[in-house]
């Protein structure tokens, strides 16, 4: 589903954010990316979303060569990916319901069908009662969960999550991870950037550890540190 083949990303100031990254995540697999801040986690997610293009190497996501993607293809590519952003990226002048409905609106869903899906997604993150609220009225953790609902509402084949549990208490973190595991079980490919070491350890999934733009460890489940 996601295949990095010696991908490097160099910015204009010659700073190399990622160097020669190679790994592959297949359908129905869930993996964590870990590493200190500035290690290149966000850049890696940006590459997958085609926000940035790799400087060298080949990155294929869901059959699309992201390095060669055309402007027109980018939107369709992003619709295949549900993304949970670290800073939520919600629309503050729309209700929770409308925020979650956005990906469906883009795809042109009928209002009733969209309504059912939005409520199902909000139910999964435990926010069904807040559908009429506005994001500003919600706590950081609730906003994060709205972002998660929006990421999964269109049933994407890839889910990217950047620190999805950063604002959540352990109970809610566990709930969110359970939602992710449900998607994994139906064949969705998940990549979760997190530096929550205890969470990673407890869940025991494959973990990619980045250090200064290099992939320094690709720990498979079952092996311990």
């Amino acid at each position, binding site marked *: 589903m996601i295949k990095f083949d010696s991908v490097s990303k160099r910015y204009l100031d010659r700073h190399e954010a990622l160097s020669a990254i190679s790994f592959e995540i297949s359908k129905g697999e869930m993996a964590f990316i870990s590493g200190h801040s500035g290690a290149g986690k966000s850049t890696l997610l940006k590459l997958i979303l085609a926000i940035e293009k790799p400087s060298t190497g080949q990155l294929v996501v869901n059959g699309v060569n992201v390095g060669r993607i055309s402007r027109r293809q980018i939107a369709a590519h992003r619709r295949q990916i549900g993304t949970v952003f670290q800073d939520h990226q919600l629309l503050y002048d729309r209700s929770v319901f409308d925020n979650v409905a956005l990906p469906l609106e*883009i*795809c042109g869903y009928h209002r009733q069908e969209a309504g059912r899906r939005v409520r199902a997604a909000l139910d999964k993150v435990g926010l069904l009662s807040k559908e009429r609220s506005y994001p500003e009225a919600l706590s950081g953790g609730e906003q994060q969960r709205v972002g998660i609902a929006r990421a999964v509402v269109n049933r994407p084949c890839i889910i990217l999550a950047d620190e999805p549990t950063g604002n959540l208490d352990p109970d809610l973190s566990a709930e969110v991870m359970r939602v992710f595991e449900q998607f994994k079980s139906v064949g969705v490919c998940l990549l979760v950037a997190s530096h929550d070491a205890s969470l990673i350890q407890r869940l025991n999934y494959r973990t990619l550890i980045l250090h200064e733009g290099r992939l320094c460890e690709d720990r498979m489940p079952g092996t311990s540190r």
Partner: protein
Amino acid sequence: MRGPHARDQQMSRDQRATPRNSRSVSPGSASRLAQVHRDIALSSLRRMLSTPGSSLMTTFVIAVSLLLPALLFGLNSNLNAVLREFQDNARITLYLEEGVTNSRGLEVSESLLTGTDISTAVYISADQALSDFSAAVGLENLTQELTTNPLPAAIVLTPNNAAPAAVAALAERLQAIPEVSLIQVDSVWLQRLEAISSLIDVIGRALMAIVVLGLFFIVGNTIKLAIENRKDEIRVIKLVGGTDIFIARPFLYTGLYFGLAGGMLACLLQAIVLIAFNFSLRELIQLYESSFELRGFDIGNALLLILLGAAIGWTAALLASLRHIRAINP
């Protein structure tokens, strides 16, 4: 919390397997599209009405820009109406040589009617011309005072084809008649008016081109500002996979509304100008005993103006929004 059950799973697979465009041909997609557009149209309208001051300002600028060429074209259509009214009684006067007798003059006059291009020919003898003249100026005894009649005999013609070019051609042909000494076409001033009318037409067209260009900048700039104001929102929509045209849709409606509102306001202003002019013109027209009324405000013209405004607004919005939305990167 509920997990994605089997049906969901099936649906998500189906959805992935089929290209997204194929869904748009399913039955009911037209009604869905109509619903989507109605929602966007309404929210764009609400957004415009939420800033009534600046919206009204923009509308007013568009209306005044459209009003200028519209008034020029209106003036021109009035001029043309005047021309048509007077063309019907365009006349050619043939003054005959001094030695031509009354009987010869009548012969010439009658022979002119054999062709198809002259509808009436009236012979006026030198004596009649003098008595008509003295009656007109109120000096009945003038005929007794004068020893010789200074006036020539004349034939007054009404051409069938009153178009200035046709009249000029006819006059040239009549010049060849040996009995005719001088030809006076009293439609020269009509020709001048027609020349002025075509000049106004050219100016109107040039002004229209400039105004269209100006409107593109005005609407384009308004849309650009609207996009600037919603930059964060556009960035988020791009992140979740919204296409540029999806993001542009509400702005297209905004451009359309501005164009429509500007066109309607231009019609209203035009009507006000015409009514005001008609009021002061009425006295002048009564002096000329003419039934002439200022024209230029009919439903066809009004619709044309509104449609023009709408078309400019929408096109300008399309060009501006695609350009500025493309420039925003997440």
